[in-house]
């Protein structure tokens, strides 16, 4: 594809529900990042994948958050028992190789937890 895509673009859910957010990186990009961004703030690192493996998941806030990338391309961020504080824009970015390459961001998924 031409760029990083994310689905859905908007997700409204109720407190306590489970959600999945999907990221399709640029073809051939081995590195993939998840961030979340609250209004007026910079992106906050969640997790980094190199290929299929999570090379750094130190940004995941707690064990309700989990992410996978089983085939080294598409990634899914999973949030269990959502809380109102999880409301934010979740951004995915991919880069060609490792951490020292420019990151191409997707349009984000706006998650609202009621």
């Amino acid at each position: 594809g031409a760029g990083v895509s994310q689905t859905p673009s908007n997700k409204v859910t109720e407190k306590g529900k489970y959600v999945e957010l999907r990221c399709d990186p640029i073809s051939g990009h081995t590195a993939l990042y998840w961030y979340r961004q609250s209004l007026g703030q910079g992106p906050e690192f969640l997790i980094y994948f190199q290929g299929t493996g999570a090379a750094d998941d130190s940004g995941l806030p707690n064990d309700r958050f989990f992410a996978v990338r089983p085939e080294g391309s598409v990634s899914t961020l999973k949030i269990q028992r959502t809380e109102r504080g999880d409301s934010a824009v979740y951004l995915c970015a991919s880069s060609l190789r490792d951490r020292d390459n420019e990151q191409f961001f997707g349009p984000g998924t706006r998650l609202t937890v009621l």
Partner: protein
Amino acid sequence: GQQVMQIPQYQHVQEGEDFTTYCNSSTTLSNIQWYKQRPGGHPVFLIQLVKSGEVKKQKRLTFQFGEAKKNSSLHITATQTTDVGTYFCAGPEWGTYKYIFGTGTRLKVLA
């Protein structure tokens, strides 16, 4: 943990005036990246600096990486309305893949 601060938080300028944003990290960075985010949009990569004291130019934009690799600046000459947006610096915690984004500087350009 590592913190990355940017000043100013907001800047309003008249079109044609210059603009500078400063980025300061609490720890040494292996590299620093700059991104621009338009209102309602996503961050778009501008540039990456790696070497101590490095200076790079892109048309009206000049980027600098400090000698100690703990600070950086972005200078825009003769701002245009298309420069409107929030500018973020970002750098990885040393030895990790964890990119820390700065607090951002929101630029408004008055025509």
